[in-house]
């Protein structure tokens, strides 16, 4: 495994100290880090499961808009931050398989580093209430 860019290393270090659930994705959309509070969203601990590939992420939970309509993959906050290169914020419903639906505020932002390097994205979650 090659060394990650400094910006992602620093983001991981910061995320590991925060109480807000955060995912850190690389430029391909693989979850290269998620902090302990994100376990509630993913059902996995980074220390045990490690990196989660983009292909695998979609299989870990269901996500839909507030009215319960499925969201197209390119409208998911991570995809918007990563592939459109802009921050995004929205309310969604999501659940891990076998778990209750959660209403969640999601903020995603692109990680563009020094020299315009597109390095990945970060996604923050805030559970509004179980429903």
């Amino acid at each position, binding site marked *: *495994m*090659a*060394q*990650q*860019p*400094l*910006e992602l*290393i*620093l983001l*991981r*270090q*910061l995320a*590991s*100290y925060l109480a807000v659930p955060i995912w850190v994705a690389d430029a391909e959309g693989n979850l290269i880090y998620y902090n302990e509070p994100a376990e509630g969203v993913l059902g996995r601990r980074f220390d045990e499961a490690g990196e989660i590939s983009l292909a695998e992420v979609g299989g870990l939970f269901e996500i839909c808009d507030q009215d319960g309509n499925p969201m197209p993959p390119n409208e998911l906050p991570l995809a918007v931050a990563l592939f459109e290169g802009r921050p995004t914020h929205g309310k969604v419903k999501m659940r891990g398989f076998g778990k209750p639906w959660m209403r969640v505020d999601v903020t995603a932002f692109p990680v563009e*580093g*020094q*020299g315009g*390097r597109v390095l990945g994205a970060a996604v923050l979650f805030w559970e509004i209430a179980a429903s």
Partner: protein
Amino acid sequence: MNVKLWGTRGSVPSAGHDFVRYGGNTSCVEVQAQEGWVTVLDAGSGVRALGETVGPEITRVDLLLSHLHMDHIQGLGFFAPLFTPDLDVHIWGPASTTLDMRERLARYLSPPLFPVLLRDLPCKLTLHNTPLGNFEVGSLSVEADLICHPGPTLGYRITEGGRTLAYMPDHEPALGFRSFQPEKEWTSGFKLAEGADVLIHDAQYTNDEYEGKIGWGHSALSHTLILAKAAAVGRLVTFHHDPAHTDAQLDQFHADAELECGEIDVPLIPGQEGLTLKV
């Protein structure tokens, strides 16, 4: 490739008889390779004396700056090659996200901090935003990467004829670790250091001092040893000594570290001003 240390002190020069052997000048390292060409890492106060050795046989000078903190550029205004008419001088350093090297450097090389403007220097000056990745400087293959230190800061990995020098004068790879156990994927500077024949690295603090200076961008000597071991470097040269640490204290820190070095298994070379070594 040969290397000479012209300044090994961190932060601000130290003067007086307590600082004679390790030296009081701030960061400056000369890399001697291709004939007629001088390559310099950082322009701390040590660069002034280096500049005096640049004779008429030299046709090109390349100065690679790790970053623009004062202790790495304060010798620049007193570096003779900049005042040598028509000498080809190239300065490389990190741009920021909004300013290029020329704008950033001009903040120092302009009044009121310095009486001469960059554009009035008589040498043939070219400024480069150091590219992240690989580039050539004469016979040297250089790789630059961002490393953990406040503000845009580069480490350099320089290779010639299969031998490699890594240079990270200001670096805090242990930032954010609860206990520093470098992993290749998640440690700043690992890629630059990995397998280098010689690593010149920040060793500013003792463990106790580091506890009070987390986030200041520097390493405890123990962190430097741990990184050197994890990255399997050939030899470690300590650098950027704290301006308050006397020769006697530095001897003691290195002697204590050498006890650990038995396990660490990386030859430890105290970075002293004037030291030369073959990479």
